[in-house]
């Protein structure tokens, strides 16, 4: 059994195709491990009985030509799953059972994957440490009482703890890449418009994007092949020619031009992050890439602009939670007080804060000063990248300004929590693809990640560069399974 859970996704698929392992053996192995790993609090909802049933059916008459033949997977609880509770980590959706399936999860099942269950996340994906979920904090397998990052914290923790061979998360300001960096895993945020947003509980619609979280870069390419498809159900889905990412993977990056933006060298950045970045630069040179110093002058305005744009969109998106058609309801003496009580009791503190910020910046008299201003800054940030991409193919930065911290360390000060996303947010504002790969460890032995940012729709380039780096880095988490009961 320990052999099974130590396999990468692509290795598992090989074994299934060669009939060396059955879907049932694999599914049972992951379920058994999840049962012993409850202390990490990664799952909100498990669907184990159905998973075993589906694995049995796959073994009897499954299609072995599928890309994910009989592979059990758990996914972030932000993706609507038909007939299975979908909570978005919130009390207000704690009893919501969708009557439809999100497009990206449907793609997984259409390629033969089997749903294990729904993974914990920050409430409505608002958070950087998985401490805002109504269903409790998630612990990271990298250390006791350490946060897995957020908002896809349950996904990152489950993946690193080997409770699922791969998973998918969503990334609005760094919610795939930051937790991947904190847990020593690979996280890819595709270009805006690559993966359908249909059926994903909306947070900030102009920024939200689903993407793979995996053990290595080839697994990320494989997952991207499955989930990146044009979808008429999402009005911002883009119909571009997608690559054959997994098959086309190449580790030859000779002559590729990599930009190093000086603005990412922020005040107070720990030495270990600085040297991680330097080592990354040295490695890229060794691999034959050309290093070019670049400037992204508006970088420091990305986070403040994000904290106008994202809450503004969230306040509109979350207006639908009114206790009428679905979700939690608290009674009131009239319609308005029913709304107000429902939303007051149904939403947690961070979500309320962001709804209030959003409502304020969109309110009469403040729209131009805040929302319009932020959209203009957003243009400047995107222009910075457009300018840089005239001379480089990709950009290398650290994924986060620090390694993982302890649960409770940053919950008192919202701004210090927001600063976690300082390196990831500019990418969402510009709609670009970016990947975080594990590249080293800090003094506590917690993982550190490097981020590669690419040109729009050039995921292949990003995957190739990270694939070639990964081979040389040979990062290992070496977790001690301390949480197993």
């Amino acid at each position, binding site marked *: 059994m320990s052999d099974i859970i130590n396999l990468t996704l692509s290795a598992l698929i090989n074994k299934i195709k060669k009939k060396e392992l059955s879907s049932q053996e694999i599914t049972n192995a992951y379920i058994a491990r999840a049962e012993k790993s409850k202390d990490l609090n990664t799952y909100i909802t498990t669907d184990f009985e159905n998973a075993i049933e589906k694995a049995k059916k796959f073994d009897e008459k499954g299609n072995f030509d599928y890309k994910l033949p009989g592979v059990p997977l758990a996914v972030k609880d932000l993706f609507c799953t038909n007939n299975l509770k979908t909570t978005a980590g919130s009390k207000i959706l704690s*009893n919501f*059972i969708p*009557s439809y399936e999100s497009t990206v999860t449907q793609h997984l099942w259409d390629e033969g994957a089997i749903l294990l269950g729904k993974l914990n996340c920050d409430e409505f994906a608002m958070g950087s440490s998985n401490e805002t979920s109504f269903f409790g904090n998630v612990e990271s397998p990298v250390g006791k009482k350490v946060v897995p990052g957020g908002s896809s914290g349950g996904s990152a923790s489950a993946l690193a703890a080997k409770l699922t061979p791969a998973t998918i998360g969503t990334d609005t300001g760094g919610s795939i890449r930051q937790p991947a960096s904190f847990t020593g895993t690979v996280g890819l945020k595709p270009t*805006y*418009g690559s993966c359908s947003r249909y059926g994903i509980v909306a947070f900030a619609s*102009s920024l939200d994007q689903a993407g793979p979280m995996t053990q290595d870069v080839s697994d990320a390419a494989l997952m991207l092949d499955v989930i990146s498809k044009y979808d*008429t159900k999402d*009005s*911002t889905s*883009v119909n571009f020619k997608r690559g054959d990412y997994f098959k086309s993977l190449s580790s030859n990056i000779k002559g590729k031009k990599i930009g190093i933006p000086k603005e990412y060298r922020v005040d107070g950045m720990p030495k270990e992050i600085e040297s991680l970045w330097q080592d990354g630069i040295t490695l890229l040179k060794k691999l034959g890439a050309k290093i070019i110093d670049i400037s992204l002058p*508006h970088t420091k305005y990305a*986070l*403040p602009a994000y*904290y*106008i744009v994202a809450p503004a969109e969230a*306040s509109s998106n979350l*207006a639908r939670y*009114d*206790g*009428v*058609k*679905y979700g*939690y*309801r608290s*009674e*009131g*003496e*009239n*319609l*308005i*007080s*029913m*709304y*107000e009580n429902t*939303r*007051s009791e149904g939403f947690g503190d961070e979500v*309320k*804060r962001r*709804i*209030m*910020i959003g*409502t*304020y910046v969109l*309110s009469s008299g403040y729209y131009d000063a*805040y929302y319009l*201003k*932020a*959209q*203009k*800054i*957003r*243009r*400047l940030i*995107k222009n910075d990248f457009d300018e840089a991409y005239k001379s480089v193919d990709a950009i290398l930065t650290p994924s986060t300004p620090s390694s993982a911290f302890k649960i409770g360390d940053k919950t008192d*000060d*919202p*701004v210090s929590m*927001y600063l976690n996303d300082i390196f990831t947010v500019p990418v969402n504002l*510009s*709609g670009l693809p970016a990947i975080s790969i594990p590249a080293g460890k800090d003094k506590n032995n917690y993982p550190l990640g490097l981020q590669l940012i690419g040109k729009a729709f050039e995921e292949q380039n990003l995957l190739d560069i990270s694939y070639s780096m990964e081979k040389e880095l040979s990062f290992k988490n070496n977790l001690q399974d301390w949480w197993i009961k």
Partner: protein
Amino acid sequence: MSIDLKTIKHIAKLSRISIDDKKAKELEKDLNSIFEFIEALNKVDTKKVDPLTSIAETSLKLRGDDVKTKNIREQILKNSPDENKDFFVVPKVVE
């Protein structure tokens, strides 16, 4: 610029979120520290910049208004917090 308690209560009202005085004071502190951070944007001259409203710079496509999912009435109503089988129910709005 700082946001006072009265404004906090007004925003809460607009947001349809009921808050007591204790919560309002907490929010006053949090929102002021967040807006202090946001004010950095005022240093940037944006007079000649067009706002970026959407990253996917394509026009929205038209499609037929066709029903694709049928017979889910019961399933949809099942998620309603109220017990009534046939309608969504809200507190009385007309006297």
